């Protein structure tokens, strides 16, 4: 059987900030090769400042690599930026809700960009808010919602567009342990049920083990230290061995 073609591909990708070649230039990503296949839930794990968010921004098309090639679904996400409208959704570290919009209006944001008719837009936004347990808070402004509720709204906003690719940049790191765990479980279920491809950035080993069906540990500057496949059926003892491997890689 031939392996599935990658939907996201980074080939020899480097990104440096500051004047290229100058002593002051900061190399965030160093000749990274990474392929992610359709339907995979990849946990990208690394220490703070190792270049995780830079990789994320390059896949999202928000930053251009200094060298190398990034392709998503066969296209360059930076140069063909508009062609990914509705095909890629992002859950950020903070909720990043627009303060002048109610919860439902925030969820409708991505659908507005896709010119979805108003009635259908509202129906889909309400559906996702209800799915994420926010029924009754549709018309609340962000300031009236708790941190966990706001993050749920931002997840609903990402799912509402029905994008095939989800990029998540430490979306639960600012939440308390209980809320974070509950949202993580909901998130994984939604990703699996809806057949999405997801890249989940995290600096927490526990989070990576809970979420990913593949864990990539990054060294600094960002390049793959270890690449570990993981299955829901992986026995606890094996997971402990993987945890040890990750800890060793992060400590190196």
């Amino acid at each position, binding site marked *: 059987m031939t392996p599935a073609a990658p939907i996201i591909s980074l080939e020899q990708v480097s990104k440096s900030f500051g004047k290229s070649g100058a002593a002051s230039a900061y190399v965030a990503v160093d000749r990274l090769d990474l392929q992610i296949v359709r339907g995979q839930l990849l946990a990208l794990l690394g220490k703070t400042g190792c270049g995780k968010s830079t990789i994320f921004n390059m896949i999202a098309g*928000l930053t251009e690599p200094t060298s190398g090639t990034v392709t998503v679904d066969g296209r360059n996400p930076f140069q063909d930026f508009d062609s990914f*409208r509705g095909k890629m*959704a992002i859950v950020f570290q*903070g909720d990043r809700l*627009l*303060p*002048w919009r109610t919860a439902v209006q925030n969820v409708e*944001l991505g659908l507005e*960009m896709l010119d979805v008719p108003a009635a259908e837009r509202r129906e889909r936004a309400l559906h996702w808010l209800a799915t994420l347990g926010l029924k009754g808070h549709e018309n609340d*402004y962000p300031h009236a919602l708790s941190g966990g509720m706001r993050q749920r709204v931002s997840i609903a906003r990402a799912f509402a567009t029905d994008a095939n690719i989800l990029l998540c940049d430490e979306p639960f790191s600012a939440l308390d342990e209980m809320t974070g765990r509950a949202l993580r479980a909901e998130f994984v279920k939604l990703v699996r049920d809806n057949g999405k491809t997801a890249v989940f950035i995290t600096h927490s080993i526990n989070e990576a083990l809970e979420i990913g069906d593949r864990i990539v540990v990054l060294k600094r500057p960002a390049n793959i230290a270890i690449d570990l496949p993981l299955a829901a059926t992986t026995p606890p003892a094996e997971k402990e061995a993987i945890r040890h491997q990750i800890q060793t890689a992060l400590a190196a």
Partner: protein
Amino acid sequence: MTMPEAAPTTSTGWASALGRRGLSYVMPFVVVAGLWQFASLFFPPFLFPSLVDVFKRCIDILTTWSQLADVLATVGRILAGLAGAFIIGASLAVLMVRSRAVNDFLSPILTLFQGIPALSWVVFAIIWFHGIEPRIFFIMVMTTLPAFTFQVLSALQAMSRDLVEMVMSFRPTRAKLFRVMIIPAILPDILTAWKVNLGNASRVVVVAELVGATGGVGYELLQQQQLFDMAGALAWTLQLVIFVLIAQAVLSFVESIAFRYRAVSERSL
């Protein structure tokens, strides 16, 4: 040091607190009006006319079409000038925020404009333009343009980068980016800019009309000065003051609707 007042808990308490606040707002005006009326008993009308005479002149202006037309002409000039300055200023601000070169080029020029007195712009306008309306429009635009540009520029620069990045991740068209992100984000600063420039514009328009017009509040004030008619001068001035108060109230009303999303702290600054 005074102790803070206890918060009123009943509806009667709120009414009396509201009454006290209203009284404290009105009281200074009542005192000034009383002193003026008192002075009118001892001085000739061309120095301190009776408030009754001033009130009658105000009613006369508002009920005589030819005089009301002068008030409306001035109001129109203020609004047209502000609208022109805002459109040009906002466009320049967008160009400045998009290009450092444009910013570096325009910033010193606008700063230079800020240093030019309104009266100088009046003289330049009289020399450069023939018609009255183009002259006044030019003066209004040139005197309020730098403030509008710098205020919109500052608002654009202060926009949350995180929110812009979030909206950009949905790949909006330029028009949608403006509608869903940029305009709501800078609206508070735009309204503040209008409030500040409204006061400035109402002062500048009088100077412009005083020198370069044959109608309007400024022109009428010149007539009153030549007739030594203090009641008329006050009545015409009040027309402009009332317009500014109404316009500020309209802007405050718009603010109260547009910014209802803002959290209100129970403890004020």
